[in-house]
């Protein structure tokens, strides 16, 4: 056996820095905890933000389309973009810990450590095209996430975590089996290599290729909450705290999308139409089913859970379409969705109570928001804007995403798909409107302002302000954003 020469340059450690920073942050927090106990959560939040900021800096400093560490690390445009999204989203969500009420998880420093590990996990997941690293990264993030959910420390959050965990374990099985099949077909676990080999053998034996794809769709379908692998989503969102639910609706999914893009894009562009058709079906079913079930929800958070399933389905269509426009649309959409959903969930988080005064099961039933406009007009208006944005009412942010993805669908000849998307948007408008109806058209049940403001704090309000600003004024920076995204996505060949 020959000795292996490794030059530091060829390792291109820079590709690893962002994750190392996040991991380092997590470890730092653990160490600080060891040194001095019972520090206030604001310290940890700030440390986390600082490390995430460093992480973000490291990500931004990356060169696009470089590989590192024996080609395991792979920073192409989508990895770059999605890392930015992941880190920025994390930075925006972690201040939600600074509530004026106390919640269990934030009293534990481990929460913040796990959070940073999770961020690193997601970063690993997107910054590689090696199935092993993707898998390991995914599991790291997922295991941390299960724990974070449970740390909220009430029965519903445990239930949520167990459900999520169990289903996640099954999905991990799917992923592993799918990977095994791909490995069997190609002798490789690197996606670019897999693509090469499969193309080389012209996708024979077809059944096995498709079987591998089927397993992968099932595994990623779980992560992206595609119907029928979505069943965990509403329960987990309901059980988790609103802050974490909002986080879950954004970050794990973008990671999932990136992996899905890497895995399916070459299949879609090959003449194996199966994957495209199945995704088409999945997209339509996911959007429609989630929308329909969301119609009858009684709880806003649960409704938003279904809504995020539906949005994920919508965005999945971009992967199915597979053009550069569609793929850049995906990122655009998700950035816009990030801010809108951040805002919406933060509003829920602000209005969170410790006791269930509105409903014996739900934290945020629709009734809670009755007549909000008369008590807190500003809050109601902002919440309404988030809802309208989610419904795709222009000029609020998500409209542009929908416009762009539907445009991509049309441009690739998927007119019917675009129409289905349109119809789904119309259906979805109903449940968003329902909240607006409660807020604006009902009389308030309680007229005490304090009842609504219970959990608000400056940082939460700031986050709401940021997301509201972004949601309303998105039209102003869509253009540069889109140009940048398109450029980045194009250079990475998607």
């Amino acid at each position: 056996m020959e000795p292996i020469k490794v030059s530091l340059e060829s390792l291109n450690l820079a590709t690893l820095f962002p994750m190392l920073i996040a991991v380092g942050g997590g470890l730092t927090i653990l160490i600080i905890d060891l040194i001095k106990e019972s520090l206030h959560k604001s310290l940890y939040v700030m440390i986390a933000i600082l490390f995430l900021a460093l992480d973000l800096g490291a990500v931004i400093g990356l060169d696009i389309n470089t590989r590192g560490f024996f080609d395991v690390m792979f920073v192409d445009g989508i990895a770059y973009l999605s890392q930015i999204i992941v880190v920025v989203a994390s930075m925006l969500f972690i201040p939600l810990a600074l509530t004026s009420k106390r919640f269990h998880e934030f009293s534990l420093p481990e929460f913040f450590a796990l959070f940073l590990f999770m961020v690193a996990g997601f970063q690993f997941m997107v910054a590689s095209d090696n199935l092993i690293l993707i898998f390991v990264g995914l599991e790291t993030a997922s295991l941390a996430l299960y724990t974070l959910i449970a740390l909220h420390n009430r029965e519903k959050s445990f239930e949520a975590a167990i459900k999520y965990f169990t289903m996640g374990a099954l999905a991990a099985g799917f992923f592993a089996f799918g990977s095994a099949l791909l490995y069997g077909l190609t002798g490789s676990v690197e996606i670019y290599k897999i693509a090469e080999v499969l193309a080389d053998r012209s996708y024979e034996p077809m059944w096995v290729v498709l079987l591998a794809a089927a397993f992968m769709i099932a595994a990623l379908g779980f992560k992206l909450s595609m119907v029928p692998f979505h069943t965990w989503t509403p329960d987990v969102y309901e059980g988790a705290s609103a802050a974490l639910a909002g986080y879950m609706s954004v970050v794990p999914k973008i990671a999932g999308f990136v992996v899905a893009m890497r895995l399916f894009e070459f299949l879609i562009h090959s003449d194996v139409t199966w994957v495209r058709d199945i995704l088409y079906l999945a997209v339509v079913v996911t959007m429609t089913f989630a929308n329909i079930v969301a119609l009858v929800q009684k709880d806003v958070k649960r409704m938003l859970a279904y809504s995020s399933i539906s949005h994920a389905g919508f965005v999945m269509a971009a992967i199915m379409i597979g053009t550069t426009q569609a793929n850049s649309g995906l990122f655009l959409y998700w950035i816009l969705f990030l801010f809108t959903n951040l805002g919406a969930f933060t509003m829920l988080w602000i209005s969170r109570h410790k006791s269930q005064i509105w409903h014996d099961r739900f934290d945020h039933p629709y009734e809670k928001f009755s007549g909000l406009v008369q008590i807190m007009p500003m809050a109601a208006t902002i919440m309404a804007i988030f809802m309208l944005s989610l419904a795709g009412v222009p000029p609020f942010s998500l409209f542009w995403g929908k416009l762009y993805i539907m445009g991509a669908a049309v441009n690739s000849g998927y007119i019917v798909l675009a129409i289905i998307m349109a119809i789904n948007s119309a259906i979805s408008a109903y449940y968003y409107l329902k909240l607006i109806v409660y807020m604006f058209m009902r009389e308030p049940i309680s007229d005490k302002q304090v009842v609504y403001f219970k959990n608000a704090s400056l940082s939460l309000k700031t986050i709401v302000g940021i997301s509201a600003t972004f949601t309303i004024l998105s039209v102003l920076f869509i253009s540069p954003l889109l140009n940048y995204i398109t450029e980045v996505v194009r250079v990475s060949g998607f």
Partner: protein
Amino acid sequence: MVEAVAFYLFAALTIAMFAITVMSKNVLYSMSSLAAGMIFISAFFFLLDADFLGVVQIIVYSGAVMALYAFGMMFFDATKDVKEKNPSKKIVFFLSGMIALLLVIILLSPIISEKVKALYPMSEEVGNAEAVGVVLFTKYLVPFEVAAIMLLVAMIAGIILASKRMDESITLKIDQEIEKEQKGEL
């Protein structure tokens, strides 16, 4: 020939063990057969020249995992027969059976590509463990480290979830009470 005999033997054994694992009403039986199944699987690894993996399998599974489960089992006091309501056996077996059938049908087609050249070939000269080690600490160093973090995460998770700090939920308590308690402590 030996290989074939071994394969069929162990195949039968693992299938049997795992069948017991999923079918038995007794946790103890179930777990024991799981442990046995794991060990039989390591036999396959040895058969397949993956000695290192086989060892790891035995150590990790029969050692660590089973120990954890055993602790768990004791904690849950689940030594007696568990009563499970399984209202829809037919569906379960239909689903699993169909998947098994279809998988088998599909997997009967030749998978291996002749053209593929091994990226990290096994060689006769180097022992399996060494070869694995080399690859693991070069190419797969990053995943390895990530796996380490994952285990750290799992450890923290396990500790914190099972710890006493979770016993009393701050989430469910009214804030004033918490403050009172803190003041009382102070």
